[in-house]
């Protein structure tokens, strides 16, 4: 590697092909106010590119929960319905029943889906509602500044678990994909992570499979995406990906959990002490 610095303020004058545009086609701009190192815009890319690549742009409707990612909706060149905190699966249900040939996805955080709206998503899955629910899981309420959610891992420090989440006081984390995958109405369930480039690529594969499952009318699909929240985790921005992989990823295991209606992986019940040690920063 040489230390020669190249100009990077403009494209090559000739002899080159653009292989990656600043933003996905279905994105209206690039300006957003989410924190440095946030994983949610990466998840947004996987969603928007999957819709575009499947040729579903003019047939897609998003139903958006409430969290940091809500601010991203102004970037989305999609017909959208803004839901209340936790209620996106119900809204998507009613809308999908009226327009069964459209692609519907919900976008929800862990506070939205696993705390406030847990019942909603479980029932939508059990009903086999032909929608795709996308969970952006960073284990904290990012928008309020880093508070414990139902997916916060044991030992994780948040503003209301300053000594780390302790099972005796705060209970155990809910692993959403593990919970939803076994339900009869769930056709596809997967958990990806955007902590590195290969994770982003794999997550996009999951997103496409979930959308394809829905368009084939096979039932409920869930894609959980682990996203960095260095602000809410109180870790240096550049350490976000590593923290995600080692701490959250150890509890919320990535991979496909159900495909073509077949369970692929079982959940390992975790021992509190081990996890606390693992999660302690």
């Amino acid at each position, binding site marked *: 590697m040489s230390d020669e610095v*190249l*100009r*990077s*303020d403009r494209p090559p004058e000739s*002899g*080159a092909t653009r*292989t990656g545009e*600043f933003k996905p086609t279905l994105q209206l701009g690039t300006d957003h106010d989410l924190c440095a190192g946030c*994983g949610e815009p990466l998840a947004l890319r996987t969603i928007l590119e999957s819709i575009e690549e499947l040729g579903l742009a003019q047939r897609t409707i998003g139903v958006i929960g409430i969290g940091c990612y809500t601010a991203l909706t102004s970037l989305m060149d999609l017909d959208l319905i803004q839901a209340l905190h936790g209620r996106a699966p119900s809204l998507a249900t009613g809308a999908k029943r009226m327009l069964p040939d459209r692609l519907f996805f919900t976008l929800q955080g862990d506070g939205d889906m696993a705390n406030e709206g847990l019942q909603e998503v479980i029932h939508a899955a059990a009903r086999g509602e032909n929608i795709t629910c996308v969970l952006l899981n960073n284990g904290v309420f990012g928008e309020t500044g880093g508070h414990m959610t139902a997916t916060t891992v044991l030992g994780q420090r948040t503003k209301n678990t300053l000594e780390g989440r302790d099972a005796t006081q705060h209970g155990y984390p809910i692993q959403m994909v593990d919970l939803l995958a076994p339900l009869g109405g769930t056709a596809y369930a997967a958990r990806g992570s955007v902590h590195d480039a290969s994770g982003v690529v794999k997550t996009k594969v999951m997103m496409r499979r979930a959308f394809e499952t829905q368009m084939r009318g096979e039932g409920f699909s869930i894609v959980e995406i682990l996203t960095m929240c260095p602000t809410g985790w109180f870790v240096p921005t550049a350490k976000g990906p590593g923290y995600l992989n080692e701490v959250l990823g150890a509890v919320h295991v990535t991979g496909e959990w159900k495909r073509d209606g077949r369970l692929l992986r079982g959940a390992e019940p975790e021992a509190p002490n081990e996890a606390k040690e693992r999660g302690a920063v």
Partner: protein
Amino acid sequence: MSQRGHVVIDIERCKGCELCIPACPPQVLRMTGEHNRIGAHYPELLSGCTGCRACWLVCPDFCFEVWQFDEPGAPGARPGE
């Protein structure tokens, strides 16, 4: 060093998270000491880019545009030099 790829960096959008630095397989991105209008340091491009898009995939602020040269090492492959 021959260039197979090139990135355009929208430095004014950069928030300085540095996620692109470890993500770059040929390690041709480096944080500058300069800062942009919001006060964030931003990456600069060194020679040796392969156009692999790893930076583009992990950038939360959509700062990267990626190009592949039709013929690596061609004269056009040294933009702005």
